[in-house]
């Protein structure tokens, strides 16, 4: 099945957690896993939920990095 992160189609297994998918996406895009946040339907998915959250086919996520510059 596929989900979408920042409009990129990502092939996933049915047992994959959100944490696993995000880590793979970060590795592929040279992003720091510890420094990204994820939203679904314009609502934050808290980091503590990632390890338990099973993904569902066709889900669409926004992923973005923390910014601290000022």
């Amino acid at each position: 099945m596929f989900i979408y992160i920042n409009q990129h189609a990502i092939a996933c297994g049915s047992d994959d957690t959100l944490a696993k998918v995000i880590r793979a996406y970060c590795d592929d895009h040279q992003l720091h896993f510890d420094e990204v946040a994820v939203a679904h339907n314009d609502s934050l998915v808290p980091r503590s939920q990632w390890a338990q959250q099973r993904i569902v086919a066709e889900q669409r996520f926004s992923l973005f990095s923390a910014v601290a510059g000022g």
Partner: protein
Amino acid sequence: MLSDADFLRYSRQLMLPLCGESGIQRLRQARVALVGLGGLGSLVAPYLAAAGVGTLRLFDHDSISLSNLPRQWLYQETDVQMPKVAVMARQLKTIHAGLKVDATAARVSADNIHHLLSDIDLIIDCSDNMATRQLLNRHAFIAEVPLVTGAAIGMQAQGMAFHSAHCGTEYNAGCYHCLYPITELAAGSCQTDGVLGPVVGMAGCYQATLALRILLQDPAMQWSQLWRFDLASGHQQIIQITQDTACPVCAGHTSAFS
């Protein structure tokens, strides 16, 4: 009571239903702490001074460098190596002579934050590092003071506001730590990744707008909403920052962060 000069000066703000005469009085009585006078703070401070905020408490331990000038344009070439707080205080008084400015050339830390940020109506985070951002978030939550946070890097601008009174699962709203549960970044500072002046200016303008809406008690204020703006693509997004039930700041959990 507003004077004739006040009515003239603030006429465009007075027209707004959000403001009115009582709004000008609210701004005049407001005490705002502004932490960081870089690209964000050097825009937010003059906007608040010009709008009629009565007291600004400024904090920055840094001096003006030549590399600041392309985006921190309130500082001038002749100000290089001068303390930012001193130059900013001087500039703000030229914008609004009646403004009360407290300028402190110090880094806000866990040791001094309770002293430096006491008796404040609003905290504005214009800092440039994650540790200070987390410190301000925690203090604002405990002190029950609203917090406006902004940041920029590259072509990305972000802004948001939090209030402990509007935080929790019943509001579907969390705090800054719920969004970014980290105390430092491996990358992502203006020093390492660069930034365009107007991009950080955009984030600063958003912060100043949020700050004025809070001080004017805007009933439509949206708390715990992240505004993201990619100025390269023009794409914007509003994200509801839901509470992380494991958050050590707003959800009452203790962890290594505390």
